[in-house]
């Protein structure tokens, strides 16, 4: 079911460079986050997305600002593409009150009401049923929106995945389930955890239209995501998209990576989506060296500004500890 590259996508120069910019922004932001983590500015769990950028960028471009987005704990990239300010994300990771969740969530719990970004969820598969509920609410309220829910292949072994798929198909609600299959659930390879490793089959089993795509190829992800979102908008039904990808870094900052060979990682790095897309754009004459240089310097500045901003932000006074346990406003 993996789609062959069909060039249905025609990029303008501006669009093309924006997509490249987003991927580079994620990459540099993540590298900076790792640096800040080793400097102990960021604490707790930190899961980086390096290598998987084409998935967030390729899928989210298919959505409108009205659509809902739910993610796992590996969500800085999605948040950036969705339009959360890098500084506000960095501040959240610093635990500062100017962060997107007021500093209460940290790296794994980025939330933003303005962009309909519903986390940042750190229980594997815990947000899938919520996605079904958000879509159900949209349908009941007669709002024409799509709910997009990202998760890893590890989540697909949880009962919660199967309950959510069944409910979504039973109720025919407009959810785009996006499995970011990076082949490892922490350190355990797909082949040790799934009896059926052709993951898209599991969507089909519920009668959900399902597809898989090379998640290292931005154009293919875009193509598949556009098709998926268009289908959902037309039918109102759920859709299951598996993006086959790879993370170049460890699962989290605590991971010694004893479960895979460096050669395997190096092999996948040959398929790094950023140089691949850069090459493509140059071939298509949508990007010059000067453009690339400009994008890189712009990202450099923005990421540094994010850190500078987080540094100047403040910690919430301890007197406010109990805030946000219950709502202050009435419903």
């Amino acid at each position, binding site marked *: 079911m993996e789609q062959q590259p069909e060039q249905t996508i025609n990029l303008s120069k501006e669009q093309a460079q924006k997509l490249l910019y987003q991927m580079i922004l994620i990459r540099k932001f993540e590298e900076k986050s790792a640096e800040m983590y080793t400097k102990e500015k960021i604490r707790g769990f930190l899961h980086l997305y390096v290598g998987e950028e084409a998935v967030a960028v390729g899928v989210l471009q298919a959505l409108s600002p009205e659509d809902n987005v739910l993610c796992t704990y590996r969500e800085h990239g999605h948040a950036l593409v969705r339009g959360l300010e890098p500084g506000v994300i960095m501040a959240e990771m610093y635990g500062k009150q100017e962060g997107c969740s007021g500093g209460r969530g940290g790296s794994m719990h980025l*939330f933003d009401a303005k962009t309909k970004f519903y986390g940042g969820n750190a*229980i594997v598969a815990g*947000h899938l049923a919520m996605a*079904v509920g958000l879509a*159900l609410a949209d349908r009941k309220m007669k709002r024409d929106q799509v709910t997009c829910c990202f998760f890893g292949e590890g989540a697909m072994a949880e009962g919660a995945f199967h309950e959510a798929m069944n409910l979504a198909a039973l109720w025919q609600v407009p959810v785009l389930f996006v499995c970011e299959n990076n082949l490892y659930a922490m350190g355990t390879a797909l082949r040790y955890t799934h009896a059926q490793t052709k993951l898209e089959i599991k969507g089909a089993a519920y009668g959900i239209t399902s597809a898989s795509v090379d998640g290292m190829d931005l154009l293919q992800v875009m193509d598949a995501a556009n098709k998926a979102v268009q289908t959902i908008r037309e039918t109102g039904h759920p859709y299951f998209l598996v993006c086959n990808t790879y993370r170049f870094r460890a699962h989290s900052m605590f991971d010694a990576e004893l479960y895979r060979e460096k050669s395997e990682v190096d092999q996948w790095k040959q398929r790094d989506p950023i140089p691949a897309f850069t090459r493509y754009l140059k071939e298509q004459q949508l990007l010059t060296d000067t453009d690339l240089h400009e994008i890189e310097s712009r990202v450099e500045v923005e990421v540094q500004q994010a850190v500078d901003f987080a540094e100047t932000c403040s910690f919430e006074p301890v007197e406010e500890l109990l805030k946000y*346990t*219950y709502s202050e406003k*009435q419903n």
Partner: protein
Amino acid sequence: MAGDRITYRECIKQAIREAMLADERVFMMGEDVGHYGGAFAVSKNLLQEFGPKRIMDTPLSEAGFVGAGIGAALGGMLPIVEIMTVNFSLLALDQIANNAATLLHMSGGQFNVPLVIRMSTGIGRQLAAQHSHSWEPIFAHIPGLRILSAGTHEDARYMLAPALADPDPVIIFEYTSMLNIERGLPETKTGVDISKAKVRREGRDITIITYGTGVYKALESASELAAAGIEAEVVDLRVLRPLDEETIVASVAKTSRAFIVEDASRSVSVSSEVSARIMEKCFYDLDAPVQRLCGAEVPIPYPKHLEDASVPQPAQIVTAIKKILQHDRV
């Protein structure tokens, strides 16, 4: 309506019906709530009245439909999710504890979850250990939730509306052993205050603090004690989280003695918490040590005599209180 006798079951049903009529955003979902008519016949005929979009049958997917309820609440609806019994709520504990209770906080106040979960609970129908617990204390432990216990017909009838008006997740515990009990219903023009405990009977000699099935048992015991010249005050906790300490403290300050009754087993229970708070706040008011009558520390057994022995009975309340007061007078 005052004076008319009505079953506890009918109270819940009227509350749901009223809520559905009052607000289009309200819908109910759960296992067997529609075509079957509700596992305990609470929602009988509501499907016929409101249709399948508002009375939604769900598959056996406690985590799935509770999670969907949370999502629907985030999306602007007012879902009433019915979990058949508290025993099965443990399959949805992840959704309740990790999502419903945390999202407001983790989002820095951006996303509140106006969800109501109703579940039946309790002991007393010989259903054995997997269908008979009083797990309220598990939920009362979780910050971010409001935990209500409908120990009277009044609460079964009038608690749902304020629960739906609450911007945060609320769990209402209903008691299967009370479903067929008929009582007159007080008129509650102002509705139930779901932040306060309620003094169900005034007294000067001792405070009986209880909730759920303990309320009618305590009232029954108090009548019997009155015949013996002991005036017991009965406090129905009604809200197990956040606990209304003020009402407890005021009552104990008045009576100087406290006796706590609950069906849940004693260790790490609601009564443990209430007892500790009384020690913290009322130690110098007390004329006797705080005492408790709780469920036995045992998975609930099937045979009737053992099941009866595993939860407090009115006769035990009476005996224990007489003993406390006698001891006091020696």
